[in-house]
């Protein structure tokens, strides 16, 4: 269900009129694709009649998604549901596995009388794309986030050691991330001399991880194409998230601390 919505949104965004960079992209596809295809496909002439034109492109991405779904679904689950799972492990290359399989049985209809089926042909197109124009095949490099490293300082403070590191991988200002973390944790904190984040209270790495996950969905990931390659900018007191990959832009909510109860020890 959610996937469907995403797909629709994606289509919409690709049709959106304002972005010039996107048009270029489309054009590029139109020009390059048939050429590559011609050069590549000596065996099946029919696939040449499958130029990726403007109209097709949107449905194309949709189809690709569907095709990839079975292989990726388990991974996605891992990523979103299993908060405890190590972030590193997810990253490693199902791409390789996938590609290997597809390459081995490259043209399963070859040497037989039968016709190719749609999925096989689609697979072939994407293999060609991957070989010649990897950026068009839509295989995203995964951004790897290392799990938060946490130390206890005394009994009441927690030090988030690789905070800066993670800010860098997300390409976000440490101030912004810090503001969000502190608001969500309902506590106060600051950076120390070694650029580590020191927060009041006891927190486990998992706590930080969960919040960072939410931060990433709210302030890093592009809703349209799921790319983390985005820029957060502030215009007239409003925050906008612009995707470097697909050019879509959305507004994001400012970080609100909300109510903070006074929990310091009462004076007697």
């Amino acid at each position, binding site marked *: 269900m959610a996937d469907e919505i995403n797909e*629709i949104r994606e289509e919409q965004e690709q049709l959106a009129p304002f972005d010039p960079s996107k048009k270029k992209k489309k054009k590029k596809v139109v020009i390059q694709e048939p050429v590559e295809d011609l050069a590549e496909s000596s065996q099946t002439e029919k696939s040449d009649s499958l130029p990726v034109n403007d109209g097709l492109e949107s449905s194309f991405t949709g189809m690709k998604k569907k095709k990839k779904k079975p292989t990726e679904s388990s991974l996605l689950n891992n990523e979103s549901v299993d908060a405890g799972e190590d972030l590193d492990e997810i990253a490693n290359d199902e791409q390789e596995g996938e590609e290997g399989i597809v390459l081995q049985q490259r043209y399963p209809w070859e040497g037989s009388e039968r016709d190719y089926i749609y999925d096989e042909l689609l697979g072939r197109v994407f293999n060609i794309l991957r070989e010649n124009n990897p950026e068009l095949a839509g295989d995203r490099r995964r951004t790897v986030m290392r799990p938060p490293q946490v130390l206890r300082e005394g009994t009441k403070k927690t030090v988030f050691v690789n905070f800066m590191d993670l800010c860098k991988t997300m390409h976000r200002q440490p101030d912004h991330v810090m503001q969000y973390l502190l608001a969500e944790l309902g506590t106060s904190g600051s950076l120390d001399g070694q650029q580590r984040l020191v927060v009041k209270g006891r927190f486990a790495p998992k706590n930080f991880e969960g919040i960072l996950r939410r931060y990433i969905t709210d302030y890093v990931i592009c809703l349209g194409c799921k790319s983390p390659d985005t820029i957060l900018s502030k215009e007239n007191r409003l925050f906008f998230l612009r995707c470097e990959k697909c050019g879509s832009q959305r507004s994001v909510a400012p970080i609100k601390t909300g*109510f903070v109860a006074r929990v310091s020890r009462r004076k007697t």
Partner: protein
Amino acid sequence: MVELDIQIPSAYDPFAEAKDSDAPGAKENIHIRIQQRNGKKSLTTVQGLKKEYSYERILKDLKKDFCCNGNVVQDKELGKIIQLQGDQRKKVSQFLVQTGIAKKDQIKIHGF
């Protein structure tokens, strides 16, 4: 070469995102937060319930249901806030949905 930009009507709601966020003009959300107190103790706060409700009555029910203490505090900017002892976030959220005080998508649970 003429490029046409044709908007194909679909079920996509262009305002969906605006409704989700708590940008101005979006519907009021209820924020359930957690704060650490000294040691293992924590505190749950509920912010943004409609003013029409009797906070005292809701609090009374919450306290009874969860067997915890709590109180209502007045914040200058944010209005009345319900505070409960312990991490009651999930339970509060369930309670609010079950009693129809709030819809599920209005409730934002914060914290770790």
